[in-house]
């Protein structure tokens, strides 16, 4: 089972949006964490802390099969993501590797929402978290059609 392409695409757009909103000197892991935290805030409100923790843990487990560097990352009981900053020094991967690991984790989390809630409700959640981002057509296949 791999990450759904449309969720990877959506994750990359969210990261791009957050990166452009932050400082130019901001690290990749900070951008990833900001995206994660926004999702966490909205999902905790919807599903509760325990509900979010379950989803995030599952997403992390799935993501690790694609990005082994995520083995250094943990989800705390309150849903906080720990260890992202430790990826680079511990595994000696380059920035692109951190970015890729982050994309994998976030897109896995969004992929779980897609499985459980479907595209319409998943996109509603994402739009609630990023009301100003242009996310109207997150599906790259649809974009290609147009």
């Amino acid at each position, binding site marked *: 089972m791999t990450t759904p392409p449309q969720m990877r695409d959506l994750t990359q757009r969210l990261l791009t949006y957050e990166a452009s909103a932050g400082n130019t000197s901001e690290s990749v892991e900070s951008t990833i964490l900001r995206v994660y935290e926004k999702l966490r805030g909205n999902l905790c409100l*919807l*599903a509760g802390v325990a509900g979010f923790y379950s989803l995030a843990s599952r997403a992390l487990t799935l993501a690790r099969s694609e990005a082994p560097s995520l083995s250094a990352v943990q989800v705390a009981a309150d849903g906080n993501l720990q260890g992202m900053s430790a990826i680079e020094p511990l595994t000696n991967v380059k920035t692109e590797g951190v970015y890729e690991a982050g994309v994998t984790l976030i897109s896995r989390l969004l992929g779980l929402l897609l499985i*459980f809630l479907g595209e319409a409700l998943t996109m509603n959640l994402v739009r609630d978290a990023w009301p100003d981002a242009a996310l109207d057509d997150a599906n790259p296949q649809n974009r290609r059609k147009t």
Partner: protein
Amino acid sequence: MSTQEKVEINNLPTGVPGLDEIVGGGLPEFSFNIIAGAPGSGKTTLAHQFVFANATPERPALYFTVLGESAIKMLRYQQQYTFFDPAKLRGSIRFVNLSQVVLEKDLGAVLEEITKEVERANPAVVVVDSFRTMVRKPQSDMDLQSFIQRLALFLASWQATTFLIGEYAEDELRDNPIFTVADGLFWLRQTAERNSIVRKLQIIKLRGQDSVPGLHTFRITNAGLQAFSRTFGLTARVRNPVGRRHLSFGVPELDKMLDGGVREGDSLLVAGPSGTGKSVLATQFIAEGVRQGEPGIVAVFEERPQAYAERAASLGLDLETPQKDGKLTILYLRPLDLSVDETMHSILDAVQKIGAKRLVIDSLAGFEMALSPGFRADFRESLYRMIFALTGIGVTIISTVEVDESFTEFPFSTYSISFLCDDIIRLRYVSIDGQLRKIMVVIKMRGGNHAKDIREYEITSKGVVLMDQRLTGYQGLISGLPVRSSRSAQEERSSHDSEIENQT
């Protein structure tokens, strides 16, 4: 206080087809309501329907979930219903999970959290699902009562219409303070009756509304809950003034026996054993109505509409064209676990849709068999309500019922429902001269001067055809085993006619 000074209570749509009628027009705005019932009884779905029907971006709905069904799973399943509009989840409906605060803190903190969210969202609708789990921790009576009181006061002050959902048992009704505080109490039940599930809804109380008392059937489909009022949704309808016309059966000799035909708005029962032409008579009645420009409904339970129309065609009656023209509807009502109320709903919809003036129910035995076993016990009572409701809006009903042929009795029906009917026509077989022949007699015609004759008839390619003269020269015709009278037929007729002359 004069009527002008009375506060006007707005009614909100419940979002549940049929429920607005039951609650007296809608749910009172700013009311504090409980939805109670066992797991799987439809509590959450009912609340969702109300939420989706009323939430707007300006006055959204706040849906608090607590312990129990996870919000994600709840949304996963609820979005399968047709009323679920995903677009409303952006701005109009907001889900807030209170599990953490419920688990870790006391009721004061829970109230504080609810207060914070309500003040932030300014909602028109607030749902707590499930309230039972929210107060599951042991509390002193005063704590719980105080919490409920403060919650109810706060939500009403913030102009929110509230639903608290809980799995309560009926024996808690007396002691639980929540039921005292609540303005409305909706109780959902589902019981197993042999192999069927019967769902019932009761409005135990609803302040400020003239709700319909009693247990109402409801069904859960992919459209959510649909409720069927015991009054069949007719309390809000203007009752048609029932005319005093006589409607033709399409059988001239029978019309004469009925003093010109069936009186408009009557309920007529055609009773007889299998093969005596009950359905044929009913078909002729409906076809004659269509011919005279009176739309009709045929509710069939024992054969499919196509077969019914084909059988009518064999009698020279065209039921296909009026169906295409919207003048006739043949309803085939035989799903599993059918309730009388659901059947009524289907029939009433059809009546309204084409403005039907005539209705045939063919047959009552098939109708009963199509019902869930749990509803069969109420068949007579439901039938009474159904007939009363339909004739009240000016529909003339012909019901057929099969009776066992007996040579010792002459029953009108096996259901003891003859009291429900204004008129009864009884068909039966008789053994005469080595032939099994058919006779017909009008047993009763409320308010009408019907013929007392026993008439022989045949079923031909033109339908039911009555013989020219009443059957004379026999005694004990209605026993089915008549004996020849010693008097000649001519003498019998003369004697009868002179009796009439003497009376007049």
